[in-house]
């Protein structure tokens, strides 16, 4: 039993970790774009992002399911019911969260540091990098919150992964299964394990962020 649990934990970490890295790779540039200047367009984008922070995971799951399904436009990739599809779904799910949080972090530092960087001869790209470097600990927190959200979400993992034992079963789908089986104690135990693991990661990331 514990071997199976640790396998599921490892899969959860891998899947959500990959999703987080992916999501961060496009979310932080997006946030930089949104934070750079005020404009009606960017404000609407930010509203959209804030809205999507709360998009129901079943909805994302459903939309991606329809895309990835055999009869869907992306069906030929054969991604449905694979860990890759959970990665994709979770990456999309947490993108708005990371974008919103990062944009607000970067916006705070914007004017001053940006001006200083440009006036010291930085290219816009270098100035952006400086902004990110200056906000690093708080950006890291934004990304961490994204990861925590991803590893704790159920709808996407269930609809896209299918909770296939030994292949796409992650912590949350395992917990949900035990709940629907009436095995509440087991579900609580799994939940405890998940939280302990996530807490460990959170504490480590905070330490690293401080050191960096």
């Amino acid at each position, binding site marked *: 039993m514990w071997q199976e649990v640790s396998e599921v934990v490892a899969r959860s970490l891998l899947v959500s970790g990959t999703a987080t890295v992916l999501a961060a790779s496009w979310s932080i540039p997006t946030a930089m774009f949104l934070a750079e200047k005020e404009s009606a367009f960017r404000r609407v984008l930010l509203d959209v992002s804030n809205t999507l922070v709360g998009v129901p995971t079943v909805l994302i799951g459903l939309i991606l399911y329809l895309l990835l*399904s055999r*009869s*869907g436009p992306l069906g030929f990739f054969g991604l449905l*019911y694979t860990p890759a599809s959970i990665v994709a779904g979770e990456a999309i799910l947490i993108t708005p969260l990371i974008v919103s949080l990062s944009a607000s972090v970067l916006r705070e530092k914007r004017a001053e540091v940006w001006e200083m960087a440009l006036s010291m001869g930085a290219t816009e790209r270098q100035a952006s990098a400086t902004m990110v470097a200056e906000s690093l600990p708080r950006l890291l927190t934004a990304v961490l919150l994204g990861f925590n959200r991803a590893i704790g979400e159920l709808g996407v993992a269930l609809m896209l992964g299918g909770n*296939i034992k030994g292949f796409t079963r992650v912590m949350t789908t395992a917990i949900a*299964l035990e*709940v*629907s*089986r*009436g095995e509440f104690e087991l579900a609580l135990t799994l939940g405890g394990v998940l939280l302990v693991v996530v807490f460990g990661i959170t504490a480590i990331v905070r330490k690293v962020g401080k050191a960096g």
Partner: protein
Amino acid sequence: YHYQAGYYGGTLRVTTTTSLYNTGLLEKLAEGFRQKYPRVSIQLIAVGSGEALRRAAQGDADVVLSHAPNLEKKYLSDGTLKPGKIFAYNYFIILGPHDDPAGISGMDPVNAMAAIYKACESGRALFVSRADNSGTNARELILWSLAGVDPSGRPWYVEAGADMAQTLMVANEKKAYTLSDVGTYLKFRKRLDALEPLVEKGEVLINVYSIYTVNPEKVPGVNEKLADAFTEFVLSEDGQKIIESYGVEELGEPLFRAANGDPAGELKSAWEAMARIG
């Protein structure tokens, strides 16, 4: 042919109703199948009957296990599913609070539903319905109509819109009557301190589980060979034995009965009756 078939490799996608999966029976069947076909990997996807059938129609399943004849009929008639086989059955049970305010204990199911209706109308009881178009929900509606009453919209008629487990929890909390498949009930029994089975026998409570191969002519990408092999296994002696013995050790009684080819044809006619009424 059997021995040749063991040579197959590939992936078999099985969508199944939660009642079969959550009890653990399907894992057992998959294990048995894997012993015969070690190179095949089976993906078991447990969702509601409606979603299971819809996913099959979308091309995301090779085999569907279902117990909702009225829904199955639709996909059979449009050709999504090839004609299937009944592989197992058990009985729905009517659960209610220990004090049984409608006095249905031991009654015939149709009379019991009528009695529940009366008790509810007089404010002495509640009824929790799954209200989710599942096989169980379809059966419940049939029972009401056989009893000649219509509960829809009544204040005591709680439409839970949820799966069996959740519905049982709601019924337990509200000390209400409800209809459940026996498998989920037995698995959940230890959580249900306020409920007990009151009516467990009767033709109209028969619950038939069918297995279908998705029609490759209608839905592209179906692995028909594996699907047929799995169906064959489930219907084989070995498969039927697994079904019959599942749960005996843990719960003291079997959760499912094997259809064993339905020699008397009762299961088939029960299926047809349900498909017609639903």
